[in-house]
């Protein structure tokens, strides 16, 4: 038995960032600092993009406010009752989230062409990342993976590239596709096509990207590509 405050402190401070993650966050800060900390001596003292100009923001806010109010009223009128997201908006939300993550790809935490190796690294997930024979995944090679989350649920983010020959021919970053996998929760994700029942993935467009969504073996698959 120990004092609650002390027990809580020990419980909470037991967790910490790994060396890789700390380094990644430091790199993020260093990147953002560069343009601010190294101005050219001859440059005019114009504000950097990170500098805050409250008066300008306020003027902007006032100008945009009526438009925002009209939009909110429109959405309010159009939307399903609160708490009951329609199936379509739930799918759109998932597609938007994974497309957003694809556009801001974060560094791989494990680089491996072998799914078993990636699985061994992603061992904190509450499901096992699966191999799938879905046609959309044919001719794609695994590059590695990292932890991420979809709709607040821990997920695996796997990076895939077309066959080496195609990748080299079309440039280094062209053709990269991201496959997200998370444990399927019908309440959270809503109904999705089930490949185990022969249903075809649903195809959505989000942020200019194509997203295929389906369920297989109790796992949600979301494949994002630039097509």
């Amino acid at each position, binding site marked *: *038995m120990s004092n609650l405050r002390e027990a809580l402190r020990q419980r*909470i401070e037991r967790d910490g960032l790994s060396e890789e993650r*700390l380094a990644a966050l*430091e790199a993020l*800060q260093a990147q953002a*600092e560069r343009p601010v900390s190294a101005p050219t001596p001859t440059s005019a003292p114009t504000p950097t993009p*990170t500098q805050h100009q409250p008066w300008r923001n306020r003027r902007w806010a006032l100008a945009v406010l009526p438009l925002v109010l009209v939009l909110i009223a429109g959405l309010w009128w159009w939307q399903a009752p609160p708490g009951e997201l329609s199936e379509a908006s739930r799918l759109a939300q998932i597609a938007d989230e994974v497309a957003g993550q694809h556009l801001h790809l974060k560094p791989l935490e494990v680089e491996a062409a072998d799914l078993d190796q990636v699985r061994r690294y992603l061992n904190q997930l509450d499901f096992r990342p699966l191999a799938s024979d879905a046609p959309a995944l044919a001719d794609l090679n695994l590059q590695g993976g990292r*932890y991420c989350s979809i709709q607040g649920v821990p997920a695996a983010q796997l990076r895939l590239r077309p066959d080496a020959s195609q990748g080299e021919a079309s440039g280094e970053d062209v053709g990269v596709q991201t496959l997200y996998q998370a444990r399927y929760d019908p309440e959270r994700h809503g109904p999705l096509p089930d490949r185990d029942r022969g249903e075809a993935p649903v195809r959505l467009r989000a942020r200019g990207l194509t997203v295929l969504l389906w369920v297989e073996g109790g796992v949600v698959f979301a494949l994002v590509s630039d097509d």
Partner: protein
Amino acid sequence: MADGPFDRAMLNRLYRYCLALTKHEAAAYDLLQDGLERYLRSAPVDTRDPMALLRRILRNRFVDGLRNRGEQLLSEAVPLEPECLAIGFGSLEDIAITTQTLEQIWDRLGPFDRELLLLWAVEGRTAREVAELQGVPHGTVLARIHRLRRRLSAQAEQDADAIPARGNG
């Protein structure tokens, strides 16, 4: 020397804060990374308290995420019972608890209760400061503390009863 406003110790504190909200390592790291990106893009260069500002950004993004997923923020609104008015964090000080019990309770607590306990036990915040950070009335925080005290005390008493029983068995 830190490259940016947050050194390693600060990043770890913020990560633990995210972990208290999300409960999942990956989600906590994503939340911290997204919040930090937003901070670096938009924070005024002369921010007086970067930790406080980033913590607020992290909390807002977490709450936005809950709302976007259509989840109700049940623990955001707690009715104030009259006896709560005399209760503060001091009422939690005398509770003794086993690691195992704390582990079980921690997993079942809501995000805002975990946040409250972290702010008190690790960050040393007062109930009024927690209310300010959570954007709720002071009374709501007192009510939450009262409810937590009841829950933790009941569990701690069960533990105390169980220890001699196990010893005798």
